[in-house]
């Protein structure tokens, strides 16, 4: 570890996790998370106001924990980075205000960064310098995007994204149909392991004209509806629902589309690296199929460990450190939180 490398603290509060990470250059020192997911489970989904209240309570204790884990004091920081968007407006504002308070109190520069670019940058602390350009598939409850990334600190291009539900949202909704608790992803993954892919569910936007118009876009709403209808018809007929087979077949449909389009995008843009991030990247079938298809296509696959794929503060710190290392100008202390920050705007 290089002692001169910038020490950067990153704050992430775009959804229901209060994340604080600390990075020195490209080395991860701390990644602390306070999650309000248990509170949201009672509501069957993320409630923005519940998330925001939890962020206010958890903010300072999580900063404190991160410093303790990293063995650093706040006064040692060289910069502070924060997710300024996209995300839940009220939740973002707690993190942005806290990051500004740190920057102001400590007299260090502040970097307001894009949540999606951070998901790409986090792999630097896991697998070393990012090969650029890289192609990134980001899949979670909030996003499903294919990105071309020539420079993670200032040039991120969107090739496609979901036109309806995010991939993780489809997992949550189908899990509910199958009587599984929120969040549904891990439950579907577990159930699918004992099931077989015997049901042929639709693959949205993968054929004919759709592949012209929506080449790298995704659609999971039709798939979700098809699964609900199939389960409802089965229940109406009085027969038991083969939960494991439904889960496996649904998961296969999602993962098939995601990996097929990601590999196609790599080929067409001449990119030899694919990175997967976001909460759905924890899905075991997605990891397996991506590995298989990337290998067949001669593409190097990079997937951070599951804890770094879900929302966290380390990813924000990792991108912040790259901003410092590459000499980017700091953000203004008046930077706003922008709930609909476009993916192409890396810094605000």
């Amino acid at each position, binding site marked *: 570890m290089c002692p001169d490398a910038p020490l950067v603290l990153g704050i992430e509060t775009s959804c229901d996790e209060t994340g604080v990470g600390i990075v020195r250059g490209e080395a991860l020192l701390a990644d602390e998370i306070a999650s309000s997911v248990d509170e949201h489970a*009672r*509501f*069957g989904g993320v409630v923005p*106001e519940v998330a925001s209240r939890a962020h206010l309570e958890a903010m300072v204790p999580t900063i404190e924990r991160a410093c303790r884990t990293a063995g650093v004091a706040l006064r040692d920081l060289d910069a502070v980075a924060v997710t300024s968007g996209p995300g839940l407006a009220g939740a973002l504002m*707690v993190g942005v*205000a806290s990051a500004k308070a740190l920057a*102001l*109190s400590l007299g260090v520069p502040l970097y307001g960064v894009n949540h999606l670019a951070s998901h790409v940058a986090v792999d630097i602390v896991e697998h070393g310098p990012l090969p650029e350009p890289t192609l990134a598939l980001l899949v979670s409850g909030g996003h499903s995007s294919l990105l071309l990334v020539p420079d993670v600190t200032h040039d991120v291009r969107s090739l496609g994204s979901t036109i309806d539900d995010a991939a993780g949202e489809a997992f949550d909704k189908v899990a509910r149909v199958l009587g599984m608790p929120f969040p549904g992803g891990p439950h579907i993954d577990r159930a699918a392991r004992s099931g077989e892919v015997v049901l042929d569910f639709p693959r949205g936007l993968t054929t004919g004209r759709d592949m012209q118009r929506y080449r790298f876009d995704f659609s999971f709403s039709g798939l979700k509806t098809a699964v609900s209808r199939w389960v409802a018809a089965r229940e109406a007929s009085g027969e038991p629902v083969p939960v494991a087979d439904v889960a496996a077949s649904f998961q296969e449909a999602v993962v098939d589309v995601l990996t097929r389009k990601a590999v196609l995008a790599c080929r067409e843009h001449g990119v030899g690296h694919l990175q997967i991030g976001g909460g759905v990247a924890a899905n075991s079938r997605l990891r397996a199929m991506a590995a298989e298809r990337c290998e067949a296509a001669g593409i190097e696959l990079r997937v951070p460990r599951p804890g770094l794929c879900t929302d966290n503060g380390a990813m924000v710190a990792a991108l912040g450190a790259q901003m410092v290392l590459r000499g980017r100008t700091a953000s203004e202390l008046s930077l*706003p939180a922008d709930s609909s920050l476009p993916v192409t705007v890396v810094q605000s």
Partner: protein
Amino acid sequence: MLILGIDTATSAIAVGLSDGERTASDRRIDPKGHAEHLAPLVGDLLAGEGVSPGDLTAIVVGTGPGPFTGLRVGMVTGLTMGHALGVPVHGICSLDVLAHQALCDECESGRPGHRLRTHGDVLVATDARRKEVYWAHYRVGGAPDGRQALLPLTQPAVDRPADLPADLRELPTAGRGPVLYPDLFPHPGGLLDVDGGVLARLGALGLRDGREMPVEPLYLRRPDALTTAERGAGR
């Protein structure tokens, strides 16, 4: 002693400084711009007074009640600054601050010192959105220690203005309630928003008196959502 006050419970993003005697304050009216403008406002106030963040000895935040998103920006800013600077953070109900502004001549005029009027009642009614107000009723009276004190006669609450007791609505009323509902609050006090300097001074007085000033947000409303159990029960 140098205390920074931050309040974002009313329409003003309000900041102030108090050394126990002298106060300075600044504010910006932007009900949606808390996250954007608060930190620069604090920075400018400190710079304008020739002090640095490291000179602060305590921070006091307005704990509301107020619209949630804005309220949290002020509170998390105060809490984080306190942690980063290693100084204690205290909380004061934002309606208490408006009541002081209304019932202390010095506070109202911005003069140094703090002297409550010998008697008087005030209703504080601020904008709670959704056609409701946050409100509380205060009176100047003798505290148990014999000094004049501002006594809250009700707990802070949120209600439709027409549902407040009629005799209370007749009192001089501080806050934006009378601007929003002039028919229901016929005696506007002319004070609209919290003043950060008064908040900072109240923090100094509270510390002098050894008062407990917990930093608990006063939401007064639960989040707008039904649990799955409640949805099931309602069906």
